Each structure stands twice: as C-alpha cells, then as structure tokens.
C-alpha cells in the first residue's frame, strides 16, 4: 500500500479515516464489534427481541432442556432462559453504558485533563485521591458504596412515589440500577483519569500547544481544540477495555446479591442461583448459557480494545 504524504491531508481526519479502514480490515476487530452490537442491541430492545417476558412462569414446562420453543431451555420456575438472558444483558448494558459515561468519560476525562494540564498542586491533589481509590481492595469499595447508597436511594424513591403519586418506582428496580451504577461510576474514573493525564503531559510538550499559547489562546481553547482531539484515540481504546471490566464488576456485584434485585434478571444472579454442583450435574445449561454470555461480552470488549489500539495507535506497535 502506498503511504500518502502527511502534509497534504489534515492529520486528524486522515488518522480517523485510516483507523476506520484498518479496523474494517481487522477480522478480530470486526468480529468483536459485530458481537457487541448484536448483544447490546438485543439487550436494549429486550422487550421486542425476547420471545417471553422474563418473569413469565410456566409450571408445565419447568427445567426443560433446550428445544425449539425454548432455545436455551427453561429454569425451575418454567421461565424461558433465552428471554431471561436477554433481559439480563439489558441490565448489563444499562449499567456499563451509564457507569462508563458518568465515571470514565465525564469524571475520568475531566479530572485527567485538569490534572495533566494544570499540573502542580491540582495534579497532586487529583492523583492522590485516585491513589486512595486504587488502594481499596478489589471490589470492596464498590460493595461498601452500594450498601451505603442503597437505603438512601430507596428512601428517595419511596418519597418520590408518595409525593408524585406515581407508583412502582421501587418495584421497577430503577433504584437498584441507580445504586449499582453510582457505585461503579465513583470507582471507575481513576484508570481513565490516569491515562488521560499521562497523554496530556506528552501532548502539552508539542510545539503547536506552545504556539497556541503564544497567540493568546485561552486555557479552555487550548484544551478543547489542541489537546482533547489528540486524546481521543487512547480514550477510545480505554473505553472498550473499561466496558469489559465494568461488565465484570456488575456481574460480580449481582453474584454477591448486592446488584439488581430479583425478579429483574441479571446475569450474575443467574450464575449464582445455578452455580451449585447439583445443578451443574443435572441441568448444566442453566449456568453455562449465562456464563458464556458474560464471557463473550468481556472477551469481545477486550479484543476490540486490542484491535482499536492497533488501528488508532500505529506507533505503539
């Protein structure tokens, strides 16, 4: 392939176009992207896609093996596993997107930009706070935050129901979503902020930033026009990998029983309920279908991140 002279084309545009082409050519990247779009699409349109409602019990058809009527079988209450998994994916979709947007994209990028751009004490302060968060063992902080938030959010939802007269807010599980999302968002900004900060440090050294400053550009303009666009390649990669780990954390939380509460299905709870050796012996599909779904989601995000990294950061190879 011919390499085009870089002076001719504006750099930012050619980078993205080139990266897009590269991604389209990458079998690994495209496979993962298609899988993610399919799963997330199914999750988002769960009420349309799922053949049954997640709570529809059918006592004549309990614990059925996969068949044409129930492609992934039924559980001990006769509920269709395929539908439950699709609704479980919906839970994961909502939580991962919300936590990534709030924690990774908004908090993470903003704090990383501020930290890297202004350096000095602002940087120290933000990074030290990040270290405190990182020092917490594993998902313990998420668990503690979720537990503390929960009664408050539930109270709030009840008050809201009482004052507005709209029923079913608590029942619908919205409060649970808020709790899990909040806990994950509070924790997930650190990784993104650290990477963004590092990037800003190196971008700041470029001549064009100095030139912009010499021309009297404001801090905001320099950040928005000169630094932010150059961050995006790294951010895109981080988002893909971060989605995988947030999905894992969400499933872990619901596995522990702290996440979204039944009857709203979540993949973690399905794995927990059916994880015993007796069920593995008699009806293994009850646990393996949710397990494989989670594995595919996490694996696809990681591999997509890898492919995006190859496409967007050609220098890193």
């Amino acid at each position, binding site marked *: 392939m011919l390499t085009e002279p870089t002076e001719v084309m504006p750099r930012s545009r050619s980078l993205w176009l080139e990266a897009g082409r590269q991604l389209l050519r990458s079998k690994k990247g495209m496979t993962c992207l298609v899988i993610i779009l399919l799963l997330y699409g199914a999750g988002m349109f769960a009420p349309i896609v799922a053949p049954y409602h997640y709570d529809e019990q059918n006592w004549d058809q309990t614990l059925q093996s996969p068949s044409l009527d129930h492609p992934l079988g039924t559980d001990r209450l006769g509920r269709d596993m395929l539908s439950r998994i699709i609704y479980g994916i919906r839970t994961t979709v909502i939580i991962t997107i919300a936590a990534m947007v709030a924690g990774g994209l908004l908090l993470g990028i903003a704090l990383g930009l501020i930290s890297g751009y202004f350096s000095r004490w602002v940087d120290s302060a933000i990074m*030290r706070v990040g*270290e*405190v968060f990182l*020092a*917490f*063992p*594993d*998902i*313990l*902080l998420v*668990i*503690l*935050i979720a*537990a*503390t938030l*929960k*009664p408050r959010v539930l109270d709030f939802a009840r008050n809201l129901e009482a004052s507005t007269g709209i029923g079913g807010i608590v029942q619908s599980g919205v409060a649970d979503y808020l709790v899990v999302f909040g806990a994950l968002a509070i924790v997930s900004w650190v990784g993104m902020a650290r990477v963004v900060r590092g990037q800003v440090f190196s971008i700041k050294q470029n001549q064009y930033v100095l030139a912009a400053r010499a021309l009297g550009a404001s801090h905001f303009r320099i950040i928005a026009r000169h630094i932010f666009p150059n961050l995006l390649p790294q951010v895109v990669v981080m988002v893909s990998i971060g989605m*995988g780990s947030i999905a*894992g954390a969400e*499933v*872990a939380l619901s*596995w*522990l029983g702290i996440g979204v509460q039944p009857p709203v299905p979540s993949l*973690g709870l399905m*794995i*927990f309920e059916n*994880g015993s*050796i007796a069920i*593995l*012996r008699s009806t*293994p599909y009850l*646990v*393996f279908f949710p*397990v494989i779904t*989670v*594995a595919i989601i*996490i*694996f696809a995000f*990681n*591999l997509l991140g*890898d492919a995006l990294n190859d496409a967007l950061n050609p220098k890193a190879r």
Partner: protein
Amino acid sequence: MAKYIVRRLLWTPVLLLLVGFITYILGYYGPGDPVEVLLDQYQDPVVVERIREQRGLDRPVIVQYGIYIKNAVQGDLGESFKYRGQPVGALLGQRIWVSSQLGLAALLIGFLLGIPLGLLAALKQGRWQDTAVISGTLLFYSLPVFITAPFLLVVFVLWLGILPSQGWGGFFDPRIVMPALILGIPGVAVIARMSRNSIVEVLAQDYVRTARAKGLPEYLVYWRHVLRNAMIPVATLLGLSLATLVTGAFITETMFGIPGVGRLAIESFFARDYPVITALTLIIAAAYVLANLLVDVVYKFLDPRVKYD
C-alpha cells in the same frame, strides 16, 4: 531517589488514614446500627445508651475514627460484632494465614506456567504458538472467577470425580487445586506476556549476538544471558503479587468455602461487622501499597536507568 522514597513513605500513612476514614464513614452512614446488631432482640433503651457511650458511639464520627486509629496503632483493632468477644486482630490472623497459603499456591501456578509459556512464545516468535499463547492468555486474563469456576467444577468434580466441590484443608490438601487454579490463571497470563516481551527484547541485544558469535551453545546463551536479564521485570511482578498473599480473594473464597480474608470480608459485610471490615480494608490496602513501594524501590536498584520524579 532518597527524596522519592521519603516522600512515598510519608504519603503512605496519610493514604492509609484516608482509606480507613472512607471505610469508617461508609460504615457509619451505612444501613444497620452496630449496637442493635450487637444486642439482637434484647434492646433495653438504657442498655443501648450505655453501650453507645461506652464504645464512644455517641461522639462525632471524626472523633470516633480518631479513637479507633489511636487504639489500632496500639494493636487494638476492636472487637468483632458478629463473633462476640473475639478481638478483630486474632480473627484476622487466622484468616490471613489461610489466604496466604492459597495465595502462595496461586503464585506458584502463575510463575511455573507463565514463564515457560512466555519462553515458548518468544522462541516461536510470530508463529502460531506465539499467537496461541498471546491470545489464549488474553482470554484467560479477562475472565472473572464466576466464569472459570463452573468449567473447573465440571472437569474436576463431575468428569474426573477426583475433587469435592468445595472445602478447605490447608496447603497440602487437594481441595486447594481449583481455587488456586482460578486465582493463578490471570497471573499466568500476565507473566507469560511479560516474559515473552522481555525475552524478545533481550534477544535483540548485542551481548546475545556476541554470546552466539563466540560459539556458546544455545541453551547456555539462554540460561546465562537471555533469561537472567529478561527475568528482571518479571521478578517485579513477584513483588507485586506478594500483596495477594494477604489480600485473599472475595469471590473465590466465598464460592469454595475457604475461611480466608476474602470470605471474612464478604461475611462481615453482610453481618454489618464494621470493626472487621475497617480493619480488613486497612490491612489489605497497607499490604498493597507497601508491595507497590517495595517493587518501585527494588526496580530502581535493579535497573538504574529507571527515573522517578
């Protein structure tokens, strides 16, 4: 260098104080009243008030935390709410011993499988073995416990029938195999990748060419020149993993019924046993932060080119 270490050493206690404070605050504002949990159904208001006063629970939260830290520094981590009369320190001691055996087993699996896999990938650089090791380890690295566990259960318990599905009997009991594999596999991935990259890098060095040029047998080139140098960054991973000897594993220990730190954390969480949760968080965070510090310092000595600001 000295300045860097001093600054880190000064920051570490502050960091731990903050970690402890956040945990304490979350516990304080979290659901459940410790005194009510303690007294169970016997709730005479006078007694509740007295215990509250005795334990300093009627003071402002920051004062309570101050008292807690003062006692903790003197080695008194308080008493567990759930296990009546058990000092938290003693409770933690037993649990850490269990978790460290499990952690050691996982560490052994990580290094004994990871380094040979990395070497294989480096030797067959660019061929299918390389790709298999690298993408295979990526797959395993990213999979959480609750996904690997069912597969292991099917293999070891249902197919081979050589292991019970859970339980704990110490380091030399076969029941350690599954949890150790689950905890060790992500380590295998990290170690294999790191060894591979490090070996590939060293192979390109002039001194390796010199060693080959002077006619040294290939195995000696690898043993004396390549591996010895390539293992330096891998050794730092060992330092980092030392922290895992204390921290335990929340989900794995819960799943396999192992009485370690991780399971204690989850149990205490559900029992609202805040003295135990706070102490656990502090100890795990301390182990992690100190291991990090140790690695940074050792790395600096091993490779003087590394610079810290």
